[in-house]
């Protein structure tokens, strides 16, 4: 057994948000099973392996469904933009993410129109809140 102290490193969480600041979607890819873990952790979400590479995702995907949320938002960070549209998205890499969707109004009419239209291509469009960059998406017309 290793009784020495694990060496210091930078937090994957911090690296992720620093990546967003630069417009990058940082993910991990497992050296054992090849699957992506996104957002990044230190362990493969698929096989439990601990050997992972860092990779950047394309930021492209498909919006499957979009709804909205209430105003004021549940979290203070998002009060300035609530009510906002929130979507269920499948990235081109096959990863499911839920995130804020920009460029659509949070009204029953617009959301209904989007629903009737069906699956829609989207791309990452980082939202810059006061204290944190936030992964969001925008519909590609």
């Amino acid at each position, binding site marked *: 057994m290793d009784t020495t102290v694990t060496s210091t490193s930078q937090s994957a969480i911090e690296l992720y948000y620093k990546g967003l600041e630069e417009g990058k979607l940082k993910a991990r890819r497992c050296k054992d099973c090849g699957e992506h873990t996104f957002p990044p952790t230190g362990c493969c979400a698929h096989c439990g392996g601990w050997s992972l590479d860092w990779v950047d995702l394309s930021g492209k995907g498909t919006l499957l469904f979009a*709804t909205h949320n209430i105003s004021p938002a*549940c*979290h203070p960070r*998002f009060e300035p933009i609530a009510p906002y549209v*929130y979507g269920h998205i499948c990235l081109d890499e096959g990863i*499911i993410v839920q995130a804020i969707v920009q460029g659509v109004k949070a009204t*029953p009419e617009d959301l209904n129109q989007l629903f009737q239209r069906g699956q829609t291509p989207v791309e990452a469009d980082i939202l810059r809140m006061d204290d944190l960059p*936030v992964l969001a998406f925008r519909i590609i017309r």
Partner: protein
Amino acid sequence: MRNRLKEEIVISGVGCSRFGDLLETPGLKGLSLQEVTANAVREALDDAGLSGQDLDAVYVGNAMVHSSQLPGTYSQLSKWIGAELKSGVHFDAQCSTTNVGAALAAMSIASGVYDTVLVVGFETTRTKVKGFSPYEREALQHKETWLWTDMAVNQAYGVPQGYDIFSTYNGLVALGYCRKYGLSIEDYDKGMFELCRTRRLHGSMNPKANIQQTMEDKASELGFSSSYEMWQSDEVNPFVAWPSRLMSLVTIADGASAMVLTRADIARANKSQPVQLKGFGISYRDLPWYDEDPTLWDFDRRSATQAMEMADIKATDINYLHTHDCSHISGICTAEMIGYLPSGKGLAAARDGELRYDGKRPMSTHGGRHAFGHAWAASAGSDTYEAVLQMRGMAGKRQIPKRPEISVIHTHGYAMIGTTIVLGGV
């Protein structure tokens, strides 16, 4: 996992407070959280014909310590329930707490260690401790309730990036359901209305429910010509996560529940009829809770499968079902996944009155999370309480005509732990 209990375990006593508000609801108002909880425990102990001294262990659950300010509950409650010097633990599985506690208690008994275990859950989602007072409370702001509740949701990447319970747990699931089964948004809305109407009917028949007013009475009080007109009113019933409206959701409450678990062979002398805990299953998943299809939740499927396998029952054996219905559409998806309702037909069943206490597929007869109300860590216990009353034929006006022999209770613990328990006669 072997998924078998080596001994028969029963729930020999159940108790539940009224769900409401510690500042204003009769039965709660004026009491401390310790006393509200002790009253639920007293009911469960009386039901089992025991005192606190007869217990081997006490497992106490509470989710939102920011409002309760009552951790270390094993000792802090001990003098209020006459159960010092026992074994115990504080635990939570958020809104699945009390039923996860039932599973832990059952395993600790079947292992050969304890004989009788008390499980308790309490929660305050509407009031919090006022300043440093040992007894005064004040109203919780809605935003505080959700900020503190959402702490149980992915704090690295979920909440910081705009996660919202109403979108993830309601609007997206509704859209997935409509797309999957070709349901129009209008029919979805009508179905949600019927479901809420049923839940509020049940609440009106339950003296412990948070909301005891039917949809019809509320509509007439507000001057609407029909309850469906009220349902469609953006003022009374706005969209909170389109296409889901406010009244398709939970109402929050303060409350407490308790149950006593023991070995079947020593419960024969019980005061009331014990009910067997035949099976349980627990499975959690972090966000996203579902893959491409928002109606298909794998951790729920696992929890239900484990519970039904342990209990050795099939879906057709179930006489009474409660599914977690913080979000009404999510509750319908779970009932269809379990096989209690046919896939895609849940809202039609609601419309046809099948989900009523006197219908063919009775569900959530206490009023569910909307009418009975939701007090996080106490709620699963309130569901089990209702099932036990129904199985004993003691549910009063809302009694299911033919007493259920097999009841299944499913709950969601934030964020997210699916829990299913199966109850049967002894």
